[in-house]
C-alpha cells in the first residue's frame, strides 16, 4: 500500500511548507498505472464468494467418494456411509468438499513454492530490477496478475508481493480444512475455486519470471523442434537427467557446459516439465518424455547423474536410480529424500564422494553448484558405468518364467491392462503381448509391487520392448510461452463471435487408458476442424509421441501460431497460465474490458462469450485438479478422462433445467434463456470419442453470433454423426433461431427440433452479474 500526503501550503511556528508531496510505503512504477482499480484487488477468501455461489448454483458439485471414511482426527476413523455423520458432525458431502479443497491447496502450494524458489533464484542471479519482458508483441505481460492483484509488474521484484499474497492465502485456505473450521460443502467448494484461481496466478508468476530472465521463447510461433523419446539420448556420452519442474539446476548445468566448452559432449535430458523448460532454454536439451517414462528410463540406467527438483518426482526415484549405479542430486527443500546436505561442502569433495560411491545421493540446494558438480561427476562416472546402461534383454525377460498367472499384476493395474496374460504368454516364448502392453502402460510399476513371485514386471515389459525404446524418437516444438497481443487482435473477434469454433486446450498428466494415441487423435481432429489447439505439460509431450501416416508428429504437421487450425505448444505445466491468460486478454484487447482487480467481470465475460474448453485426458496430480478448478472459476469448462473420476468431484449442469440457463440481458436486465451453454464446468467422460463430442458442445456460448453458432453446431453435429451416429437429441437446446442452423442440414435439423417443441429465442448481451446490467438495474 502507498500513502500519499500532499501539502499545498502550511505555516506553523517557524515552519513554512509549500507544495510538499510525500509518499510513504513501497512505491513502484505500477502504482502510476492509468487503468482504474477494479473491485477486488488481491481478493481474500470471501471477496469472490458470490461469483462462486452463482457458478455452483448452475453447476452443483457431484461427488464420488473414493473412501467411505473420514480419517482426519483421533475421533475416527468415522464411517460416513449413506448419510451417517462423523464424530465431529461432518457428513460425506462436507467431507468431500474438504477433500477437494485439500487437493486443490496441495496443487496450488506446489506451484507457489515453485514460483517462490524460482523467483528467489532469478532475483539472486539477475537482480531484482531484471525487467519483466515477454517480447515486443506482448504488452499485456501478466494478464492474470493484473486481473487478480491489480498490479502491473515491471520487474522481477514486483512479483515478490504476488508470491507473498499467494502464500498468505494458501495458509488461510489450508486452515479451513482443519477440524472445526469450515463445514458447508458449498463453501469448501468456493474456497477450492479460490485456491484454483490462485494456482493460475502462481503459474503465471513462475513462467513470466523464467521467460524474462532465462531467455525462453517469447510467444514465437515457430520455436525450434526438439527431440523427444526414450531413444533420443546418446547413452555413450555422459548423461545428466533432470526430473521435476524447476528448471534452475538444469539450466545451470547447460550454462556450465557452455562456459567450459563441454556443450555437446555431455547429454542433458529431462523427464516431465523440467524437460520442457530445458528445451526452452537450449534446443540441444533432450526430452525423454512425460511422467510415464520416468521410472522406465531410470531403470534403464542410462543416466549417470539424476537431478531431482520438485513436483512429479516419483517417491522411489532415489532408490531406483542408485540401484542401477546412477548418482542423484536433490536440489529442492520440497524433496530432500533423507539425504546428506552437501550444499556447503567443497565441489571437489562432493564430486569425489559421488564418483567413489561413498555417497550415491546428496542434497545440494544451490543450482549453480549443482551445475558444476553434476557435470564433473557425470564425466568421471560415465566411463565406469558403460556396462550398466540398457537392459540384458534375455536375462530379464527370462524372469517371466516365475509367473503363475495369479493376475495380481492385472488386478493392480490402474487402467486395467491384462499384464498378467502378457507376462505369462512371454513365459511360453511369445513376447508379442508385452510389446502391446508397452504402448499403453503408464509406467507406474504397481504390477511389480503386486507380484507375489517378485517378477520386476515393468522391467520385463520394457526389456522385451527395447527395440521400440531405441526407436522412440519424435519431434516437438519447444514451448512458446505467451500468446502475443497481435495474435489476440487477429483471433479475438472470430472467437467471441464463434467463427473460430473454439479453443481446445490439452493439459494434464499421462494417466489414461489406451496410451497416448487417443490424445493425439483428439488434437488432430480439432486442428483439422480449424479449432485453435493448445497443448501443455505432459499432454504436450505425449501428443508428440505419435506420428501420422506420413511419419510426421502433429507439431510438424500443423503451424504453431495461436490461430485456427494450428497446434500451439505453450510449454510445461506453468505455461498453462498463458492459455487462461489468452482468454483474459481477449476480454481486454478485443472487448476493452478493464482487467485491473476486476476478476468477476472478466470471468463472467469468459463464461458467456469465449468458447474455450480444456481436456485433461490423463489428469493424475493434485496440481491438475487445482489448475482445472482454477480454470472453472475463470469460466472455462474442463473435461476429464475416466481416471479423473478419482478426483471425487465434478461440476455438472443439467441441460433440461430451464431456470439454470437464464442469464441477464445486460441491455435491459431481463432474464433470457440461453440453453445449456456451457452445459458442464467439470465433467468426466469415458472415451476419447465422447471427449471430442463433449468438447464441441462445451465451446458453445450464449453470445455466439448466428454465423458462429452455425459453425459450432456444424462441428457438433458432424462429430456426433462420426462417433455416435445420427443427429444429437439435444440440438433444440442450442438453436436460438433458424439462422443458427447449418445450411446443408437445415431442413433435417428443423424437422427434428420442431418435434421437440422448439421455439426461437433471442441472443442477449449475456451476464450473470446484476451489476453489469446497463444503467445499474
Amino acid at each position: 500500500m502507498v500513502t500519499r500526503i500532499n501539502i499545498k501550503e502550511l505555516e506553523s511556528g517557524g515552519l513554512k511548507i509549500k507544495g510538499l508531496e510525500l509518499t510513504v510505503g513501497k512505491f513502484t512504477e505500477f502504482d502510476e498505472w492509468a487503468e482504474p482499480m477494479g473491485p477486488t484487488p488481491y481478493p481474500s477468501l470471501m471477496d469472490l464468494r458470490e461469483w462462486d455461489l452463482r457458478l455452483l448454483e448452475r453447476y452443483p458439485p457431484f461427488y464420488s467418494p473414493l473412501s467411505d471414511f473420514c480419517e482426519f482426527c483421533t475421533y475416527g476413523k468415522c464411517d460416513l456411509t449413506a448419510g451417517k455423520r462423523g464424530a465431529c458432525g461432518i457428513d460425506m458431502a462436507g467431507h468431500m468438499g474438504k477433500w477437494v479443497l485439500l487437493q486443490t491447496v496441495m496443487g496450488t502450494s506446489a506451484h507457489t513454492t515453485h514460483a517462490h524458489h524460482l523467483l528467489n533464484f532469478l532475483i539472486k542471479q539477475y537482480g531484482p530490477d531484471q525487467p519483466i519482458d515477454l517480447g515486443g508483441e506482448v504488452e499485456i505481460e501478466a494478464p492474470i496478475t493484473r486481473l487478480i492483484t491489480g498490479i502491473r509488474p515491471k520487474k522481477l521484484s514486483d512479483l515478490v508481493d504476488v508470491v507473498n499474497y499467494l502464500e498468505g492465502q494458501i495458509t488461510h485456505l489450508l486452515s479451513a480444512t482443519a477440524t472445526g473450521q469450515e463445514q458447508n460443502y458449498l463453501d469448501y467448494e468456493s474456497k477450492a475455486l479460490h485456491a484454483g484461481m490462485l494456482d493460475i496466478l502462481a503459474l503465471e508468476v513462475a513462467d513470466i519470471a523464467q521467460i524474462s530472465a532465462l531467455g525462453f521463447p517469447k510467444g514465437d510461433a515457430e520455436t525450434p523442434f526438439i527431440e523427444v523419446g526414450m531413444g533420443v539420448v546418446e547413452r555413450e556420452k555422459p548423461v545428466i537427467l533432470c526430473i521435476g519442474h524447476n528448471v534452475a539446476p538444469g539450466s545451470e548445468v547447460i550454462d556450465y557446459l557452455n562456459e567450459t566448452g563441454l556443450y555437446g559432449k555431455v547429454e542433458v535430458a529431462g523427464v516431465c516439465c523440467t524437460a520442457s523448460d530445458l528445451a526452452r532454454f537450449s534446443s540441444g536439451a533432450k526430452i525423454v518424455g512425460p511422467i510415464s517414462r520416468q521410472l522406465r528410463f531410470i531403470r534403464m540406467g542410462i543416466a549417470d547423474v539424476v537431478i531431482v527438483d520438485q513436483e512429479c518426482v516419483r517417491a522411489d526415484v532415489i532408490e531406483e536410480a542408485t540401484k542401477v549405479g546412477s548418482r542423484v542430486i536433490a536440489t529442492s527443500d520440497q524433496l530432500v529424500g533423507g539425504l546428506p546436505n552437501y550444499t556447503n561442502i567443497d565441489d571437489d569433495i562432493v564430486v569425489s564422494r559421488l564418483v567413489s560411491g561413498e555417497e550415491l545421493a546428496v542434497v545440494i540446494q544451490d543450482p549453480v553448484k549443482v551445475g558444476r558438480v553434476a557435470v564433473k561427476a557425470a564425466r568421471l562416472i560415465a566411463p565406469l558405468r558403460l556396462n550398466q546402461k540398457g537392459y540384458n534383454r534375455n536375462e530379464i525377460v527370462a524372469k517371466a518364467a516365475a509367473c503363475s498367472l495369479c493376475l495380481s499384476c492385472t488386478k493392480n493395474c490402474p487402467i486395467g491392462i491384462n499384464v498378467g496374460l502378457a507376462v505369462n504368454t512371454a513365459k511360453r516364448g511369445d513376447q508379442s503381448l508385452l510389446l502391446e502392453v508397452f504402448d499403453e502402460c503408464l509406467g507406474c510399476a504397481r504390477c511389480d509391487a503386486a507380484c507375489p513371485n517378485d517378477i520386476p514386471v515393468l522391467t520385463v515389459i520394457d526389456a522385451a520392448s527395447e527395440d521400440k525404446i531405441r526407436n522412440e524418437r519424435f519431434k516437438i516444438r519447444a514451448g512458446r510461452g505467451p500468446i502475443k497481443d497481435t495474435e489476440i487482435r487477429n483471433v479475438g473477434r472470430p472467437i467471441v463471435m464463434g467463427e473460430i469454433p473454439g479453443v481446445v486446450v490439452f493439459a494434464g498428466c499421462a494417466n489414461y487408458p489406451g496410451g497416448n494415441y487417443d490424445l493425439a487423435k483428439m488434437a488432430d481432429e480439432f486442428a483439422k476442424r480449424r479449432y485453435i489447439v493448445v497443448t501443455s505439460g505432459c499432454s504436450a509431450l505425449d501428443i508428440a509421441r505419435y506420428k501420422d501416416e506420413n511419419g510426421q508428429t502433429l507439431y510438424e504437421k500443423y503451424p504453431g501460431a495461436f490461430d485456427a487450425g494450428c497446434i500451439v505448444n505453450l510449454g510445461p505445466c506453468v505455461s498453462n497460465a498463458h492459455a487462461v491468460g489468452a482468454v483474459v486478454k481477449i476480454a481486454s484487447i478485443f472487448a476493452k474490458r478493464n482487467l485491473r482487480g476486476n476478476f468477476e467481470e472478466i470471468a463472467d465475460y469468459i463464461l458467456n462469450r469465449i468458447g474455450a474448453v480444456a481436456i485433461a485426458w490423463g489428469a493424475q496430480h493434485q496440481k491438475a485438479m487445482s489448475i482445472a478448478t482454477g480454470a472453472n472459476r475463470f469460466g472455462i469448462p474442463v473435461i476429464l478422462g475416466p481416471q479423473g473420476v478419482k478426483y471425487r468431484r465434478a461440476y455438472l449442469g443439467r441441460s433440461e433445467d430451464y431456470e439454470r440457463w437464464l442469464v441477464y440481458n445486460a441491455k435491459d436486465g431481463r432474464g433470457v434463456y440461453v440453453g445449456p451453454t456451457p452445459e458442464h464446468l467439470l465433467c468426466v467422460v469415458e472415451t476419447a470419442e465422447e471427449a471430442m463430442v463433449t468438447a464441441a458442445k462445451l465451446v458453445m456460448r450464449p453470445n455466439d453470433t448466428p454465423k458462429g453458432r452455425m459453425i459450432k453446431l456444424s462441428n457438433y453435429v458432424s462429430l456426433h454423426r462420426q462417433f455416435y451416429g445420427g443427429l444429437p437429441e439435444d440440438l433444440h437446446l442450442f438453436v436460438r433461431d433458424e439462422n443458427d442452423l447449418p445450411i446443408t442440414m437445415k431442413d433435417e435439423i428443423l424437422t427434428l427440433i420442431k418435434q421437440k417443441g422448439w421455439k426461437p429465442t433471442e441472443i442477449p448481451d449475456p451476464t450473470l452479474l446484476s451489476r453489469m446490467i446497463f444503467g445499474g438495474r
Partner: protein
Amino acid sequence: MSKAIAWDEAEIRGPKTAYTLTPENCGKMLRRAKRLLIIVGGNILDEEYVKVNMVNTIERIAKKLGATLAVSPSVFRAFQHYDGTKYMINVESVVERLLDPNWLGFDGRGKYDFILFVGGLYPFQSMMLASLKHFSPTLRTITIERYYHPNATFSLENLSFEKWCEGLEDLLKAVEA
C-alpha cells in the same frame, strides 16, 4: 449371500459393501425390479464383453423386464437395432440425476428402483456406484460384471472368464424363466 474382496485389491471399503449373488440369483433379483434402469458403460465393446455377447445379454434382460437403457454415447451404436426404450447419455450425468429425489426418470413416469451397471472401466464404474451408495442409499444397484464391485448393493463375485460366460447363461435363464 456373502461378501467378497474387490477385484481392484486397493478398493477396500467400509461396513457397507455389496452382497455377492450367484448369476442365477442375480437374475432372480433383477426380476424383482419394478422399474429397472440399465446403465451401459463406454467399454461395452471391449474384447471380453464382445466375447460373451454382452450387448445381446443386455438387450434380452431389458426386453424381458421392460427396462430402460441409459447408454454411454460412444457405444450407443451397438444398440441401434434395439427397439426398446433407450437413451444416449453420459454416465456421470445419469448418475447425477439418480441422486435427485425429484427426478422421475427419462420419461417422467417415476423413479427407478433398481439400477444395473455393466460395461464401464472398473474404477470409473466403482466410483459411480459409490456416488449412489452414499447419496441415494435407498436405491438398489447391481452389477453383472466379471468382477466384484463392493460399492454396489449386489454383485457377482470375481469369476474366471469361463465361469462368467456360463454364469451369464444361468442369469438369462433366470430372467427369462
